[in-house]
């Protein structure tokens, strides 16, 4: 069978920077071809070349056996290449049907026909979404379905999925994988980018690994293990990901939460975390984990229940109270909640505790501040151009390190991580795991929310599982398994302890 896409010797330089230094990649109709590599390996650049956004400096793009030059994204789209972006490119205030047919809406809209066609397309994907619903009101998973339906309506033959499951719950991710399988059956060729290797191994027929802008290997699924893939990507096996265990002995209870609740989102949640202990919060997206930790931090107000830190009952009206009491939160969305992207590393690092760096009249002692930031940057092995570099210039992993630096500087007693490694590449993940462990080893209490099971199992001393706003059970290390976790997390399954 001839390749639908064949890229040979693709190079792309920006000024003196070589983002791609010779990539070979091919895609056959009806296959799922995964593209793997750390952040900065060149995956997105390569996809932008294929999507017509970038013109390669060197190399050939062959589509259906013909040497092609893509004049732009529109050209690529016309040739049937669609990129399903991680950040949705949909109009939230328009209906599902309007979004699907946005480019081809007639001047006068026949609503009934439009809705019918939209419903049909969505049904083909095995979903039932009201075509007249506003896209903004849909869940992220359903928005993704709409985007796929849109691509189908434009007769896409090549679909690029860029980390599609990063924002989905376990269930929704499952459904998405089945959609991708269905697309494959229809003969659509799929390029699949993901950091979740277990997922990749399930869905992909072949995998190409990029490293430093070069394709280092293309392997078929048969006989490949996660360890093999990680070694190809970073040159280290999986077991090394979580690093050496620093010996930790849990001390006194730091956090005690009793009967905490807010509406239907969090119901009667009780838990405790001891000094030096890392406790995980698992469950499906929407189970109330983020909502629970936000209550503990003071970001939202609880209707019922109490939070006690180091024996002192807290009155949490806002994060001001949480931080003052000694709680830190690395929020779910780094970019929207954790960092001020356009501001410097220094500003972001010292923001939560500027007081020791102040001279009279509120003047900031810049030198002292730089010293603090440099010291923390060294401790966290932050790769940056210096304290005054904007956070937006950092990679995802280094951005997360700035969030960590902020709370290291505050020196909190309880640190809450909500999805600490989302959108972070394998190498940086391992560094962040090591930092979290170090933090606990220094006698701090740590609470980790994560949707990646192996992350919870690799990192935590015990894992609490939530479902529909309530804590449904606890797993100790000897009971760590995906199956046990899902039993507690899935609605409709018995409430095992």
């Amino acid at each position: 069978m001839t390749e639908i896409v064949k890229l040979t010797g693709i190079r792309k330089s920006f000024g003196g920077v070589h983002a791609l230094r010779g990539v070979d990649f091919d895609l056959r109709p009806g296959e799922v071809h995964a593209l793997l590599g750390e952040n900065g390996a060149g995956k997105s650049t390569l996809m932008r070349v294929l999507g017509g956004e970038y013109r390669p400096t060197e190399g050939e793009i062959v589509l259906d056996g013909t040497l092609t030059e893509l004049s732009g994204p529109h050209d690529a789209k016309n040739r049937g290449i669609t990129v399903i972006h991680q950040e949705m490119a949909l109009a939230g205030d328009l209906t599902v049907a309007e979004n699907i047919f946005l480019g081809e809406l007639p001047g006068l809209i026949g609503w009934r026909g439009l809705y019918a066609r939209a419903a049909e397309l969505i049904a083909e994907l095995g979903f039932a979404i009201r075509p007249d619903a506003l896209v903004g009101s849909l869940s992220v998973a359903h928005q993704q379905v709409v985007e796929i339906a849109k691509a189908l309506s434009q007769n896409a033959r090549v679909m690029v999925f860029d980390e599609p499951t990063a924002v989905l719950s376990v269930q929704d991710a499952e459904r998405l994988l089945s959609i991708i399988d269905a697309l494959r059956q229809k003969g659509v060729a799929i390029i699949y980018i993901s950091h979740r290797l277990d997922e990749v191994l399930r869905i992909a027929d072949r995998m190409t690994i990029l490293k430093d802008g070069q394709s280092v290997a293309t392997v078929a699924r048969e006989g490949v293990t996660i360890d093999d893939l990680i070694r190809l990507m970073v040159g280290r096996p999986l077991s090394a990901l979580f690093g050496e265990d620093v010996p930790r002995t849990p001390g006194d209870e730091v956090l005690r939460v009793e009967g905490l609740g807010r509406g239907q989102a969090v119901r009667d949640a009780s838990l405790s975390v001891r000094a030096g202990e890392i406790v995980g919060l698992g469950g499906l997206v929407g189970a109330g984990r983020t909502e629970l930790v936000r209550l503990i931090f003071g970001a939202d107000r609880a209707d019922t229940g109490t939070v006690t830190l180091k024996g002192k009952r807290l009155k949490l009206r806002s994060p001001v109270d949480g931080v003052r009491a000694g709680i830190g939160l690395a929020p779910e969305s780094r970019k929207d909640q954790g960092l001020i992207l356009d501001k410097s590393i220094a500003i972001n690092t010292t923001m939560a505790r500027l007081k020791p760096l102040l001279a009279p009249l509120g003047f900031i002692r810049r030198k002292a501040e730089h010293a603090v930031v440099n010291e923390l940057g060294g401790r966290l092995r932050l790769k940056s151009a210096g304290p005054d570099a904007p956070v937006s210039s950092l990679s995802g992993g280094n951005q997360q390190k700035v969030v960590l630096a902020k709370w290291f500087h505050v020196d909190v007693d309880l640190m809450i991580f909500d999805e600490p490694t989302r959108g972070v590449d394998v190498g940086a993940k391992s560094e962040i795991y090591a930092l979290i462990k170090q933090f606990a080893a220094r006698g701090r209490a740590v609470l980790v929310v994560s949707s990646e099971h192996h992350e919870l199992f690799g990192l935590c001393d015990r894992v609490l599982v939530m479902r529909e706003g309530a804590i449904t059970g606890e797993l100790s290390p000897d009971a760590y398994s995906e199956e046990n976790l899902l039993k507690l997390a899935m609605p409709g399954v018995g409430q095992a302890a």
Partner: protein
Amino acid sequence: MTTTPTNLPNSRFNLQAAIQNFGPAIILVVLLGIASSMSDVFLTERNLMNVLRQVSGTGLMAVGMLFVILTRGIDLSVGSVSAFGSVLSALWVQQMMPGLAVPLTMLVGAAVGLCSGILIAYLKLPSFVTTLAAMTIARGAALIASNGQPIRMGKAGDAITYFGAGSFAGVPYPVWLMGTVFVLAGVVLTFTRFGRMVKAIGSNAEAVRLSGISVARYEVAVYAISGALAALAGVISSSRTGIGSATIGVGAELDAIAAVVIGGASLLGGRGGATNTFIGVFILGVIANLMNLANVPGYHQQVFMGVIIVGAMLLQYGTAALRR
């Protein structure tokens, strides 16, 4: 530092930032060149000082507006508050010492801002509508306090009118005042916690809040500052005319906003500075002055002013759009 393609948009961003940093200065230099070639009078010290004195009220309001805009808000009430300030200072100066009347007037202005600020920061009302309401309230209050009549300060206001007419080292007192306020604002924005937090809030209020910082307090503070400075602008107005008037400052909020935006500040918050805002104020003054020197009729001036503002904005923002 590793060189990943993710760094690239950043290096481009820096170039853009440079345009935004020096754009206002470049516009001003070009404008000064045009102005001096068009008129022999323009570049005289007398004329330039005149320009500065005319913009000193707008300048004060622009400083307050800058603080508000940096937090991603807007204050439409400054023109009306300046009128209220003008009336109050003219009334009070007849009952008490100017040294008391002026601070009290500013305090009232700050109180108006405080009310708007509390509604905006704690009750989450949109700043646009809230300060629009404050605008009509302050205007109404000014008309009530003055009975709709201009208030002559007379002999009691000598100290204030002396301030409005006099000068030190060749520079009029109101210009000294404006300059001092700009320098203070610059220092606060660049070197202090307050300035840093104001800008941080404008960039990402949620991240600041989740760092345990009371965002609302800073927000209230900027509206209070804006109100106080607007009232002070009203005092400057009465100091020059000797009259407290409830009808001054109509549309002055737009001049202040224009000055801040021409000075490169982003209406989306987080970006802007005192120096460039000052340049923005000066640019507006020069344009008005130039049109007077060129005998452009008043109505035409308004049209020209609008066109020139659009031109300045194109230089600021259009360059960014074209680079895509």
